[in-house]
């Protein structure tokens, strides 16, 4: 879909911070509030705006430290539908937070989240490996998150404003 420069401007603003009010977006993009509303609605319908996720560092919240694993999966592609059918099946599990078709040593890359290691192990052995056409799985548990979706996860805050209060 080809978007106008105004529509792209609105997307860039809400990509940075979707909590900004329509009024403020309008003033930043030099357009009317009506244009902002219409654009957002249009882009939501076109599924260009997919969702408004909030990136949370759960590892900092006691009792909510999720276990995350990345799993390399080899599959035998099916005639006619290729990888799509098996990928579609796997992506429906709520444990799966992302799924990509990859080139290289394996076919699918899956990210799985669970409360415990055990929960993920059960998912892999009982749900994933038993799917027809899944040939093998290699599970890598994630030990620490340093950067996710362009956001650096760290306690040492680069965002801290180190400037003096007034400078020339």
């Amino acid at each position, binding site marked *: 879909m080809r978007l106008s420069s105004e529509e792209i401007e609105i997307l860039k603003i809400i990509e940075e911070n979707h909590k900004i009010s329509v009024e403020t977006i*309008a003033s930043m993009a030099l357009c009317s509030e009506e244009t902002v509303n219409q654009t957002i609605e249009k882009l939501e319908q076109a599924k260009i705006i997919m969702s408004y996720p909030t990136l949370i560092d759960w590892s900092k919240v006691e009792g909510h430290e999720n276990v995350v694993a990345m799993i390399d999966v080899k599959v035998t592609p099916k005639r006619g539908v290729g990888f799509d059918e098996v990928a579609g099946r796997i992506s429906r599990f709520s444990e799966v937070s992302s799924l990509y078709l990859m080139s290289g040593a394996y076919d699918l890359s899956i990210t799985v989240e669970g409360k415990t290691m055990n929960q993920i192990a059960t998912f892999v052995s009982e749900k994933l490996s038993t799917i027809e056409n899944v040939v093998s799985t290699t599970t890598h548990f994630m030990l620490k998150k340093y950067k996710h979706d362009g956001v650096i996860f760290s306690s040492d805050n680069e965002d801290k404003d180190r400037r003096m*209060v007034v*400078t020339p």
Partner: protein
Amino acid sequence: MSLEYNRYLSQTAKELQPSGIRKFFDLAASMEGVISLGVGEPDFVTPWSIREAAILSIEQGFTSYTANPGMLELRQEITSYLGTRFGVKYDPTNQVIVTIGASQAIDLAFRAILNQGDEVLIVEPAFVSYAPLVSIAGGTPIAVATSPVNGFKVTAAQIEAAITENTKAILLCSPNNPTGSTLTKDELLEISKVLKKHDLLVVSDEIYAELTYDESFTSMASIEGMYERTILINGFSKGFAMTGWRLGFLAAPKEFVEVMLKIFQYTTMCAPNMLQHGAIEALRNTYHEVESMRNSYRRRRNFVVQALNQMGLDCHTPGGAFYVFPSIRATGLSSEQFAEELLMQEKVAVVPGHVFGESGEGYIRCSYATSMPQLQEALKRIQRFIESRGVNPKKDTVECHTPS
């Protein structure tokens, strides 16, 4: 018994005015929880690859002096940058010096061209260093006042009216600190005619060249007949978010550079080696980051200008830099009172306009190089402050407006 110190001090140095910015810094720095719109520098940290290049150069042992005017490799990057971005050609071997910030480049320019009694026109409101640097070099700064009537742009006629037989040069700064006003190519052309007619030099401070929002930037040196009489000043501080690195550069006809280089050799020797490695990386590989910072400033500018106008503080839309310069006349306060009381009452730091010259009285400089949430909060507080002063917000501000 203490010495009679006055007796020992240089007359020129003694007569320098302390910067009004300094006073305001002392005041604001002593308070907690201040939101600052008083900073003349990017809120971004230097792009990582630039920092990484400097770190690597230290690891590799680049810890010696470099050539006086800077590493040839960096000068080559600078000339190719000036060529591709602004269409001005310089020879890296004898037309460029890498300096300690644009600040030192301006100092070198004045020291190289001024004799006792030479006058330099300074377009005000102006960056706080210009007039003192002219004085230190033995010249006389002459203010040319601008006003918001035409967006604080200096006109050819205003310049012509200020010229005397002692006028040697003009300092032009576009986009400007503190007003953000940005001269178009046509406006520069008009000005260039007067400068040629009166045989004047231009020290062209183009430090905000990367931060222009509505029109592409035109360098004074690219205007016909001006290359020969222009000392171009630029640097990494603003566009590349590298203020603390203290790296700038100048480019000029080699006859000027030769003289400036002599002064530079004796005062400085060269810019720091490892930082020059960072600067090479900046020019080679970070253009997309500069662009994304520019886009972010532009959006914030739009928001801030509209918010100030809506609350009743008249504010023109500046074409560049990251400052707005709204009038605070509606409050009946002087700019110093306004800034002080705003700081005390609402903990928002801005810079009173008069520190940039007399014509800045009645205005304040607000920097929008601050995150959107901080800006939104600061503007809320400013609104509360001016409402407490009985200024009425404009209810009928037009929703859609194109920047002038």
